[in-house]
């Protein structure tokens, strides 16, 4: 059993699960693996869902999530609650990892993944039941995205989920870079309005 030599009270796994993410991060920072496991359990589905949506390949998505979580654990990086929830922070890291993975691939592969229906192409992982609050959030974000003009939602999806740069998107759609940036900006601004009070969007703030 992992013991803590610097006075950290050892907590049972059950006791840890009642702690808020922010409290767990304090323990993670001190090297408590059990606390990290609780963080992993809480956010790995969301992290894997994002990575899988972006990478379109189960193996690559697994690598991305593994790298992301291990880097959180190893780097001792400080979670700053002023910048959003732990989930937002975890997903931000996974998003960046996935972008890196996608940009390392050849342009050919990248184009294929971003253009095809990612889910249908592969043996889809098991759908997961998400709690009601998350389902509501997902529905709101979906709706906000779908209400955008197609040209705006497309560039947002190609950028965020496809990992493409604005230059690549401009080339793909045969449009000036400025047009692409403008569509992204307009689209995000409209989504912000549709999602209402940022406090409601922000996860567990």
């Amino acid at each position, binding site marked *: 059993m992992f013991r803590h030599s610097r006075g950290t009270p050892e907590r049972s796994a059950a006791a840890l699960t009642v702690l808020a993410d922010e409290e767990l991060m304090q323990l993670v920072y001190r090297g408590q*693996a059990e606390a990290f496991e609780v963080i992993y359990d809480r956010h*790995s589905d969301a992290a894997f869902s994002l990575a899988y949506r972006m990478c379109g390949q189960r193996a690559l998505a697994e690598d991305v999530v593994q790298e992301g979580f291990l*880097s959180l654990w190893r780097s001792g*990086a400080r979670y700053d609650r002023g910048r959003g929830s732990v989930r937002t922070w975890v997903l931000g890291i996974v998003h960046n990892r996935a972008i890196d993975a996608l940009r390392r691939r050849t342009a050919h592969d990248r184009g294929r993944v971003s253009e095809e229906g990612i889910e249908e192409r592969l043996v889809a*992982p098991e759908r997961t039941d998400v709690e009601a609050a998350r389902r509501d959030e997902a529905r709101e*974000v979906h709706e906000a995205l779908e209400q955008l003009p197609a040209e705006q939602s497309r560039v947002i999806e190609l950028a965020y989920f496809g990992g493409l740069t604005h230059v690549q998107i401009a080339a793909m759609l045969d449009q000036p870079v400025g047009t692409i940036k403008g569509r*992204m900006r307009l689209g995000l601004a409209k989504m912000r309005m549709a999602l209402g009070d940022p406090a409601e969007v922000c996860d567990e703030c």
Partner: protein
Amino acid sequence: MSVEKPNVEPEGCGCNVAPYVLGALTEEEHAAFSRHVESCAVCREEVAALQVVAAALPAAAPQVSAPAELKQRVMASVYAEAREREARERAEEAPTARERGGARGGPRQGARRPRALAGAGEWLRWRPNLAVGALAAAVVALAAVALTTGGSAPGTRVIQAQVLVPRASASLRVNGGQAQLDVADMPQAGPGRVYEVWRERSGSPQPTDALFTVSADGSATVSVPGGVAGLREVLVTSEPLGGSRVPTRTPVIVAGVS
């Protein structure tokens, strides 16, 4: 000639905010825009507003279960590393534990007077929000935080800091309320950058005017302004010349004080 609006500096243009929060700038553009945001309140405000939207986007992905074997792989590494870390801490707490870094005497750097910086700073090429990931690959081992009694001045407490740069080390020498940070084998902060010391009591790190660079051998000694009384941690990040009011990068040095 028509009277046109002056050409807006491309980097500083607010039209980069959306691709920035979506992760759609190239690496170079991202770095340049990160610097711009630090000095432009208008862009900073828009980044904050649109980042909330970007943070909500993962919810639009179909929600699937992470494979069980993935958890096994991740947690096997985590528990193994936790055991190693604990073993290392035990070893450092043993009587043979030797104070590290205490005698290093790098030149004291004047606050707000960073010297010309050299070196490509390869290790700092990551973007701010990529820091965690990219840095981890470079981490060889985390120095454990250990408290020992210093061998130099009576009553001096030497705190080994966590350093996220391979081979580098740092220690905090605390005597009374005063504290001095000694770093060794640190790379240069990189072109146009400087190291900044932060004080963390609880929550957000507070900036100090202690900015420093390291000498050619990678050493530096810097006082922690205001001492460490009541602090939880002393942090060091790499920041643009002149320092920042909020950290823009993940700390490279973390010294637990409390």
